[in-house]
């Protein structure tokens, strides 16, 4: 089964329910979109991730009401260095979408979505702990996996796999 090349033209993808909803909302900055291996990825501007999540959750046609996962990818030494990744699932429509926010390497931070889905609580704490990305507005942003007094963020690419300490 040969791989189809990814579709990155946002014009060709405008029928996808998530893109329809997000492009209609004025407050959401839609940077980019990609359809690859049957999965939809939408790049959102750093300032509007919370608005985008609210829009998608409250979409009457296709409500993406379930936050499956929040994680992060470190593209060190490229800039923008971090990509925070949100996986949403629409339980009524059985549809998935992936939202991404690109962040710079210096003091990365973005708005928390815990006010949209409380589920983001542990996921965002994990990203904060292991990548050092701050989530503004998170009610309890503390380390979750590593000890409280740990130095560094283990999943960053400039953190060695072996030989630390």
């Amino acid at each position, binding site marked *: 089964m040969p791989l189809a090349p990814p579709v990155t033209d946002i014009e060709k993808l405008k029928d996808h329910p998530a893109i329809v909803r997000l492009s209609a909302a004025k407050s959401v900055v839609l940077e980019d979109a990609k359809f690859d*291996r049957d999965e939809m990825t939408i790049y959102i501007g750093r300032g509007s991730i919370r608005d985008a999540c609210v829009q998608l959750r409250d979409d009457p046609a296709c409500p993406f009401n379930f936050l499956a*996962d929040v*994680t992060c990818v470190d593209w060190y030494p490229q800039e923008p260095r971090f990509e925070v990744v949100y996986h949403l699932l629409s339980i009524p429509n059985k549809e998935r979408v992936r939202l991404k926010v690109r962040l710079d390497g210096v003091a990365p931070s973005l708005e928390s979505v815990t006010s949209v889905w409380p589920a983001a609580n542990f996921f965002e704490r994990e990203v904060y702990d292991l990548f050092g990305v701050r989530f503004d507005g998170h009610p309890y942003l503390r380390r979750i996996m590593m000890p409280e007094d740990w130095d560094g963020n283990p999943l960053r690419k400039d953190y060695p796999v072996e030989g630390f300490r």
Partner: protein
Amino acid sequence: MAHLNPLPTMDAAEDRTMILNMGPQHPSTHGVLRVILEIDGENVVRIMPDIGYLHTGIEKTCEAKFYQQVVPLTDRIDYLCPLTNNLCYVLAVEKLLGLEIPPKAQWMRVLMNELTRINSHLVWLGTHALDIGAMSVFLYCFREREDILRLFEMVSGQRMMTSYFRIGGLALEPPIGFFDRVRHFLERFPARVDEYENLLTGNPIWGMRTKGVARITAEDAIALGASGPTLRASGVDIDLRRDMPYSGYENFKFKVPVSQEGDVFARYICRVQELRESNAIALQALDGMPEGPIKADAPKVVLPDREKMKTQMESLIYHFKIVTEGFAVPAGEVYQAVESPRGEMGYYVVSDGTAKPYRVHMRSACLANLQLLPLMCEGKLIADVVAAIGSIDIVLGEIDR
């Protein structure tokens, strides 16, 4: 609407309450979960789970391994359903590669997965009942679990850390007599489930300890990211095997048990019914098991047969290259979700075009389910905390990774 736990510190608010540490070495926390409780007499005022005691950095380790070397690591994440972890990871990598898997391998994967689900639910049922005080159920459940572990040992050589699935198919052809032994087990198993139900379902003590305890509404469960039987017990009808099928699940007929009550008893009923459904799926997989190869036709990815490797130069070259250099995976990213015994297990694999994964992230169903705990326990009795923890079926290896 579900609430968060916005507590900066865990100090007793008034003199009348006290702080109690439960765990990390507490038999009812199923591993090393620490729960900090603020109690007022017998009532729980606040509860805060504290995790991370089993954090081993598996996601970081994966980045330093070849794609095929990650498979044994995935076993260690959730040690009660190693084959589900194997499946989720290999499906993600196969999706990245665009590999087509032969039907026999797919059906074997379904069969092994349903046996794993039965295995995991049996451990859950035994320990959960033990926590609440029904000691004998544990012995019944582990009797059948032992049979399943023997089946795993027969097929893969290992009782628990099976690593039986490979990228592109299966590790080994199932041995002669394996299917007969599986059938022997599956045909007797529904009567065994009846035995568990005789012990518990109509038992008034069991009912008093579980009915109406730790109730969760559907809205709260969705908002807090619950999945699997925990979500279905609150009346949300979703099962990834049926709704977003993978690995040939669309060929199987099964019911998805859903309860409306959302309490500990409803979660118990959902899982016990899932035992029967898994048994039925496994029987269907046995009956319809296709013939044919167990590995995909992709010499650059799948290790050649031992026989060919020793007699044919080309196979030897491929074998040498896969073992020493791995195989390059086209750049891209995939989120593959499967229905694990505990809920939605997801593997997010990012490839940068080399032979090692750039990033592997596991979406842990238990981690999300654990967030329900404050909602379940606050304002309730301290004895029910144990029932609530047991009912969400946590595995700390998966939570901490």
